[in-house]
């Protein structure tokens, strides 16, 4: 037995030695070195800059969604005056009908803000970490300026759409911080924050760079001007906002020089980042960044005679949206009566149908890659272009009651459109208002601009009288409901008053 005991002790010692050896390898301290994690992120300039680019990647992801984009948010609700189901096959899904007729509810896809908030969250991260990460000062200013612009731009969409919205200024990084389960902040607070962010972006504007797929000095001023006009006209902001708008537009400089002479070329996929473009989000096939709402306007191959497919009729799956007959008539008249050169770009029309030669119509701008069938959607989507600055300037002068100045700016737009100087000459208030309205319709169809312009000019009720009826029951008719899924995920959220 003593011999056995010895053996036992030797064995135990051996095992213990082996175990200690293994244990001493710190076997459980494994840092995965093939991925950025919280332990090695936010340490240098590269982390901050690539995160800054990420904001715009996220922003793009938001606006290329099928039901969430500037078309649904900024134009479809103009309603039947302008839009309807395909004149060819008369179908629309419930979501489309709901938005066109302002009958949205919590389950309407377009009510989703989630991708907008991922962009905001990414901007919040950059704004949180950029000040403390060791990096060059100019890069820091660039990152903060870009993030401030992006956050302001996103919140500006959010506040205009839903009014009160969650106002997160810090990134959501844990399940326990207040930002994770936010409440809807009063819209006044949101608008105030947008103003502060714009100020910050303006302050750093000289460091932003000139890349039009990101914020530039002009883009920041465009946002500032649009924000100021909105605050003045819809939020009782007072005259100080007109001063703000004037500052911004002066900084951009109003004139014809920045307008591209050929209207059609502005949207050309082979003429990206052209002179007229101020801010765009990039699509390109190389990086597999494709998509955009314009596929709704494209015909199914089955409706188009083979020889016209992609020449000139763009082909995709189903035409779900097209101009209303009324608006087609408006454009045709503008072309026939005034020689409006924009109509060829804004309206494609002809007897290209299979068989009986029915007339097909579609918006003919933002054309994707039609060298293949079906189309690949690689045209950039434009968010600000110089024509908007000119129109906002006219609008500003209209609010300032400086009608001759308004006329002057309107005629810059009109000159390119109709090829004539002083196309507009009546400087009465009503005539200016009508000219502003008409030009917003004819200059910007499909760009997500018109709905907001009509609200600012208080003209939406003329073009969508059903909204006026609905306003009786729902004073928030110009806002949107929030999505039911957002409510289901966060107990603290309440539906927009007046909506279900």
């Amino acid at each position, binding site marked *: 037995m003593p011999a056995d005991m010895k053996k036992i002790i030797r064995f135990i010692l051996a095992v213990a030695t082996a175990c200690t050896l293994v244990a001493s390898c710190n076997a459980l301290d494994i840092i995965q070195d093939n991925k950025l994690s919280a332990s090695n992120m936010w340490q240098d300039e590269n982390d901050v800059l690539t995160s800054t680019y990420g904001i715009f990647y996220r922003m793009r992801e938001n606006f290329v969604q099928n039901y969430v984009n500037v078309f649904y948010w900024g134009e479809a609700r103009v309603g039947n005056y302008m839009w309807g189901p395909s004149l060819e096959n008369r179908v629309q899904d419930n979501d489309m009908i709901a938005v066109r007729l302002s009958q949205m509810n919590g389950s309407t896809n377009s009510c989703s803000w989630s991708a907008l908030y991922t962009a905001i969250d990414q901007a919040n991260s950059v704004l949180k970490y950029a000040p403390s990460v060791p990096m060059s000062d100019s890069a820091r200013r660039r990152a903060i300026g870009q993030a401030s612009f992006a956050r302001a731009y996103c919140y500006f969409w959010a506040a205009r759409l839903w009014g009160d919205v969650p106002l997160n200024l810090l990134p959501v990084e844990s399940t326990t911080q207040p930002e994770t*389960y936010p409440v809807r902040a009063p819209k006044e607070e949101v608008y105030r924050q947008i103003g502060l962010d714009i100020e910050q972006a303006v302050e750093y504007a000289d460091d932003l760079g000139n890349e039009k797929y990101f914020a530039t000095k002009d883009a920041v001023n465009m946002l500032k001007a649009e924000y100021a006009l909105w605050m003045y006209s819809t939020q009782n902001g007072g005259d100080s906002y007109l001063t703000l708008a004037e500052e911004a537009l002066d900084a951009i400089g109003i004139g014809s020089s920045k307008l591209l002479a050929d209207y059609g070329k502005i949207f050309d996929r082979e003429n990206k980042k052209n002179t007229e473009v101020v801010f765009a989000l990039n699509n390109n096939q190389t990086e597999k960044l494709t998509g955009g709402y314009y596929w709704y306007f494209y015909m199914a191959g089955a409706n188009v005679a083979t020889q016209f497919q992609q020449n000139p009729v763009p082909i995709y799956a189903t035409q779900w949206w097209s101009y209303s007959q009324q608006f087609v008539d408006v454009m045709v008249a503008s072309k026939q009566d005034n020689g409006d050169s924009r109509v060829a770009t804004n309206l494609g029309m002809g007897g290209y149908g299979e068989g009986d030669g029915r007339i097909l119509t579609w918006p003919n701008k933002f054309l994707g890659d039609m060298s293949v069938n079906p189309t690949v959607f690689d045209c950039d989507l434009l968010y600000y272009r110089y024509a908007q600055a000119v129109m906002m300037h006219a609008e500003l002068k209209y609010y300032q009651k400086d009608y001759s100045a308004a006329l002057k700016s309107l005629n810059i737009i009109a000159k390119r459109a109709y090829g004539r100087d002083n196309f507009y000459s009546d400087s009465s208030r009503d005539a200016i208002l009508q000219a502003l309205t008409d030009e917003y319709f004819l200059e910007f169809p499909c760009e997500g601009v018109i709905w907001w312009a009509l609200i600012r000019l208080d003209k939406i009720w003329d073009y969508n009288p059903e909204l006026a009826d609905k306003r009786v029951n729902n004073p928030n008719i110009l806002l949107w409901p929030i999505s039911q899924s957002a409510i289901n995920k*966060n107990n603290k959220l309440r539906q927009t008053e007046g909506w279900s």
Partner: protein
Amino acid sequence: MNYKKVLICCLAALMGVFFVSRPVAGAQDKLYDVDLSMSQATVSSFTAALTKQTGILFSYETDLESKALGKISIKEKGASLESILLRAFSGKGVTWKIVNRTVILTEDVSRQDNRSTVRGSVKDSSGEPLIGAGVIIKGKGTGVTTDINGNFAIEAEPGQTLVFSFIGFITQEARITKAARMDIVLLQDTNLLEDVVVVGYGTQSRRTLTTSIAKVDGSSIFDAPVASVGDALKGKVTGVRIASSNTLPGEAPRFLIRGGSSINMSNDPVVIVDGIQRSMDDINPNDIESMEVLKDAASAGIYGSRASNGIILITTKKGSVSKGPEIVFDAQVGFSQPSRSWDLLNATEFLTLVRQAIPLGPNSDTILNGANAAGTGNVLPTSMFTTRFLGDDEEVPAGWLSMADPLDPSRTLIYTDYDAEKDWFRTALWHKEYIGVNGGNDAVKYAASASYLGDDGIVAMSKYKLFTMHGNTSFNVTKKITFSTTFDFSRAVKNPLTSNYFNAIGRGLMEAPTHRNFDEEGHWIMGGTNVNQQIASFYESFYDREMATNNVSANFTLNWKIADGLSATAQYAAFDSNYRGSYYARGMVNGTRNFISGTRSTTETRTETLRDHVTAYLNYKKNWGGHEINATAGYEYTHWRYWYVNATGTGSSSDKVPILDSATEYTASNQDTRQALMSGFGRVNYDFTGRYIFSATLRADGSSKFAKGKRWGFFPTGSAAWIVNDEPFWRVDPSVVNLFKFRASYGLTGNNGIGLYDTYGAYSTANSYSGYSTTLPSTMMNNDLKWEKTSQFDLGVDMSFFKDRIRLVLDYYDKVTSDMLFSITLPDTGSFGSAKANVGSARFYGFEVELHTANIQTRDFSWDTDFTYSFARNEVLSLPDEYMYDEVDINGNPTGKKAWRIGGYTMSESGWRFGGTAVGEPLGRIYGYKIDHIIQTEAEAAAALYDSQSHGYLPSDNLSVEGRKAVGDYEWMNRPGSAKLPDGREQINGEDMFLLGNVVPHSTGGLNNTIRFKRLTFNIYMDYAIGHSIYNYMKTRFIQNTLGNSNSNLSHYVYDCWKYPGDTGAKYARFFPNDADFGNRNFSRASDFNVERADYLCLRDVSLFYELPEKWVKPLGVKRVNIGVSGNSLYYFTAVSGTVSPESGISTDSSAGQYSFVNNGSGDGSFAPPARKILFNVKITF
């Protein structure tokens, strides 16, 4: 720590065991000084002493070790080796020779004059000879087997002991006396409770088991007509739900043991094969010695951190002396076919129904006259469909059909008929060949096998091939040291078409029967407006995909009997799984371009999972008086490494080089991750007089997945058993009740089933924007993550009556998981959709019944029945306060209580909430719309509730008015307090969903009957599940008539649709052309139309086997030949429609929980019919 270090550490652990094993000494071949005096020397004691003094090395067989040498006294200086050996061994029955400076001792055979031939027979208790029973001389490697009459003859000496063994019988020993003839009767080992059970780092007699472990004997699944072990176990193990969520060949079923432990993370148990964690899918059932399912905490607790969802231990076959050298050849061949069908309309039925229905919807003229499935505007050569009117002077083309147009009987429709279901689902060849050898002697034991399985697959492009090899050897190096090695290799190859089965096969099945498959030149014709919809041969010709997995596992085990009762085991095991995925999409075949994509996409994927595993443990066993102690303590270290590389290329100009090389554009991705688990464990069993048995285990696990400070988890368990019938006070006749045992156990187990980045967070750098790289957060960091813990209480009774003729095992369990690892859905106002956290707790409880009865047992006829029943329930106990709200009742009145709920729905009006995951409610519920009735009159339709999903199209005004209803539509149930329209009217929307069912059955089990008559064995097995439902999305698709202009086919149940006002007997709402896009969407939402009760009874296995008489096979030199026929998954008795398996409805992804439902249109192939197999078997034993 890098990989190299791990290896060194692993080696260190093994070396630690080696270096103490046996000392080695120097040289001889010279003269020696010896001073030895031993009164009762043995070979072992003398050689040891001599080696110590002189360094002379000896080698001898273990049986010589204790051979007595009597008195030895040597006192010499300068003695030669030869003289020493002569003095020690001469005349003592030992002879020697010197080889390579080592003295080899052997027994002097010439002196064994006692040997004689011992004869006898081995029979069972009924007097039936046992053929092939093993007869072995104890302590020797020699033995024989009994002949056809059960007789044996063996050369042996009196005094030696013979060991008699036969599978299924209790092994017996008998000492050879002068009487020579030995007639032995072996008793059948029917007592399951005397069985030995693998308990994790050891074995234990079932009789003394204190925990809940189910054992499946390898012999019961030998020859099972299945590809994967799991398929052979459905319903057979109590407390375990085994269900095939994916019915394609090569897809293994999923296991849910006692409800698992988690709400929305994986509930899959951990499978440990011969000591290493791996999957069981590629293990050949024929290679399995036994499978143990550790169900309660006390049994699984020895595996600590990974045990919350239960543990399945698989022990593969080891060599056996008793079996003698045996070669088994086993072949199964037969066919498999779809066991279920959609019963789709043929072209004539389709045209008759759909042409009459199209006028109900919008654009009917365009559709009826257009190039559509039921339209007549189809023209050669381009149209996808054939339907058209017969021309004035035209004959019906050969192979075409004709009928009078139901809309205008004066005109004749001509068309072709295509059967999509036959195209996609076929009868396929299924075969499996197996050869195994097994045998050994005292020193070496071996088992080896190879097998090949080929399943042509009943679904187009679902071929599956599996090749396996298994090898095990063990060597008794000395009497005390055994080394053993096990190797397993498998190669599994699948050739599936795409990863999304719904897109291809789902849509393919919906192909209209009037589809034209080829044009006149033999080119494929486009399948539908959705490019993925094509016929089967299109996919078969354009897509090449191979998914091949090679798994290698090997282990090397050392077992050392250190001293009486004390043994040590050390094991190094490695598992290496290599996956290769190759995919190529042709751009052009036989002059037809690829309609789906012309980019000639090529993808190559390689992954490797490597697991290194070191285990070392000590086992100590001691008896004294009525006490017995059995203790185990050990250490374990596991290191995982995972590599992934994937490259995709597109843009090749031709199909000639279908690999990445020819592509012009590339994307690639890569991963390399590691994790480690370090553990210490111990177990003590104490048995007092065989009546009171106690057991305790403790395991500590450290996982690298958690942050420092949260890494270690401790998992203690305790259990006890009381064998009541051994008590002196027990007065019941032992022939009536031969076992009555109570068991109770309680303990903690854990779960670390989170992702590698859930603790540390992660950022993705994979995306670029306009030429700039981006960094985006992808996983939320949570440093506070820690082990999930599950406590489980188990109460069991084991009973046996009438000498084991009736055996009953009952268990009740109640487990509570706390600090639950949970994937929280986050609000959509941040970057993360979800995050992992330890939140809340849930309870899983139920009971299990296992009953075996030997109904008839006679010499020629026996009938045995096995029945299992398991009942499982669950309830959420707590959720974090982020999900807390003030409860209101259904009318909106505050109840004053707090409630907790994740997800679900909130009533706009009353604020009452339901659905999702909530405290006090069970998991796995399916919500949807509930049918109130079918609208029968215009007045009813006008007064019907506004339905937010209804297009409201009426032919009378040719308008789609949202929310409007028509006669024949479903009127859905409205929930009080749900959302109203702005004008105050009630409406049907998402708030009007009701509980329609649960994804997990509450009851599962099986019933087996085995009847033996002489050489015939008949077996019939059925399994069942009760209480679950399936969201049968495909049922919706075969009544919706979608895919463009009513181009999708329908199933015969469309005839059960409402037909006319007052049709109160109708089963379903009205049929409407393209209901989803233009109709009132009676069918497209989850509702009690498509959420079907999935209770089932499956006729799982029926087999008939015959053992050929020996007189036929003996002349062939064969021991036994069994032939038979067996059927598998023959028929499901269920209310589930179509091909959909009533076992499906849960995700096919093993990392997902089993409590969230999926609809079978989600692309994973779960709508393919389960395969019914009919196989012919031959098993030859040499």
